[in-house]
């Protein structure tokens, strides 16, 4: 007797609780995975947006390689521009081979391209570049954007939205399931509550029993769900790696600090939700009891 551990006042190891545990874990798993996916979609969309916004192609209408190089050097000194690289005539000719064959006449004027990489966050650069170039007497045209990139961006936006909706849905489901289950557990334990009550237990005492129980259930179930989500994310990550660079349209899941924050938040969130649900349910039920 002396050193025996005390039996918890709420029955443990209940099959009902095993089912609940499983459900909460499964839902947390899905929620964490959706969270990660949504986050990745956001990341991909931003990367895309960044690339698209960050790259400007300038076509120099007149002047040869020298003009292109001097324009590139000039542009590189403008604030907000990371790099500006002029293509040589050979590079452009290579691009044209399918149409015109190998031997272009030397005297045919060919436009030069300058690939400008903007610094992230730089705005209104097209106008600044046009101004600078025209001020220096260059005749240029700007290609800020490629239409298919816009399409990709829009598609990613839709995926992102879908992810957000799924996430909100899952979180709502987790919330309701936990609240429902707490309520059910309390009803199933009405006899215990009643006995404790008439034995002189205060409302806080009884409520705390349930709060602790459900807090730890949420924490454990959420933790296991998050763990499996981590495994799932890693699987997807490697699957994406396997398919190589060619899957650039898909959001990439890369394990970073954000990933771990999402995974850490899941069990904590589940635990707190479970505890609050327990507290509200118990307090209301006790009020009704007498």
């Amino acid at each position, binding site marked *: *007797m002396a050193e025996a551990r005390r039996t918890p*006042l709420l029955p443990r190891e209940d099959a009902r609780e095993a089912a609940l545990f499983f459900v909460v874990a499964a839902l947390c798993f899905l929620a964490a995975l959706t969270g990660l996916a949504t986050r990745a979609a956001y990341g991909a969309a931003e990367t895309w947006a960044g690339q698209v916004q960050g790259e400007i192609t300038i076509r120099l209408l007149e002047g040869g390689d020298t003009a292109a190089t001097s324009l590139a050097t000039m542009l590189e000194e403008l604030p907000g521009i990371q790099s500006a690289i002029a293509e040589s005539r050979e590079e452009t000719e290579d691009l044209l081979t399918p149409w015109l064959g190998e031997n272009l006449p030397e005297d045919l004027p060919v436009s030069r391209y300058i690939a400008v990489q903007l610094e992230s966050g730089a705005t209104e650069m097209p106008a600044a570049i046009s101004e600078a170039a025209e001020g220096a007497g260059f005749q240029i045209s700007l290609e800020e954007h490629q239409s298919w990139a816009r399409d990709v961006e829009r598609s990613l936006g839709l995926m992102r939205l879908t992810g957000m909706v799924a996430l909100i849905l899952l979180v709502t489901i987790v919330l309701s399931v936990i609240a429902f289950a707490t309520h059910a557990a309390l009803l199933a334990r009405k006899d215990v509550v009643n*006995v404790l009550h*008439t034995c002189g237990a205060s409302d806080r005492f009884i409520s705390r029993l349930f709060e602790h129980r459900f807090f730890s259930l949420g924490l454990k179930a959420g933790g296991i769900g998050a763990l499996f989500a981590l495994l799932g994310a890693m699987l997807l990550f490697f699957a994406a790696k396997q398919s190589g660079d060619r899957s650039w349209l898909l959001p990439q899941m890369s394990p970073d600090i954000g990933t771990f924050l999402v995974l850490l938040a899941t069990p904590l969130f589940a635990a707190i939700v479970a505890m609050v649900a327990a507290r509200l349910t118990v307090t209301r039920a006790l009020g009704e009891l007498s």
Partner: protein
Amino acid sequence: MITEPRFSDDQPAIRMAKVNHGYIKGDHVLGDVNMELNPGSFTFLTGPSGSGKTTLLQLLYAAQLPRNGKVSIFGIDTSTATRKMLTSVRRRIGVVYQDFRLLDHLSAYENAALPLRVTGRPEREYRDDVMELLHWVGLGERVQAKPTTLSGGEQQRVAIARALVNKPDLLIADEPTGNVDPEMGERLIRLILELNRRLSTTVLIATHDKSLVERLEAPILRLENGMLMHERGRIG
């Protein structure tokens, strides 16, 4: 002051004034019942099956509130008391339920110790007392057994031990000897009598057990058709 009611000798332990109660609209399980139990008194409650004995007892440990009239326990009106006040009242009452109401996942020892545990007292303070009490009711060998592995009479004895364990000011017992043999019944009643004499515990026992009632000199209340009558002796 009011949340920690003190026990004063010049007021009754229990008082029912014009209590009218029932479950369905129109029925009267209790019809204008008046009663008082003085501190330290020992009283029986009898009456046919279904006459309302359990109902009356539930009013006296605040498991129900009366439809009409007033029930006071230790001077506290159960209908107007706060939940906190009722909790502290309950800590001074021991109850033996007709259907035992033991917690199946706790051992006999833990069930008996429950009223002490819920107050937050450390176990070492009361362990020996609880063990002694369980020995006294004949369960010394079964302290670690779960209620589902106890016989009917053994369960009833755990329920009695739980009601007595915190030396209550008021003991309410509903058919406490229905499942034990006459010898054990006598032993249990003697235990309750001892508590009544040594600690001035007020005792009210509902019972059908003729031989039990006959062996003791205590006053008898009889409930029939919603009315409470003195069958023997003056109450209080």
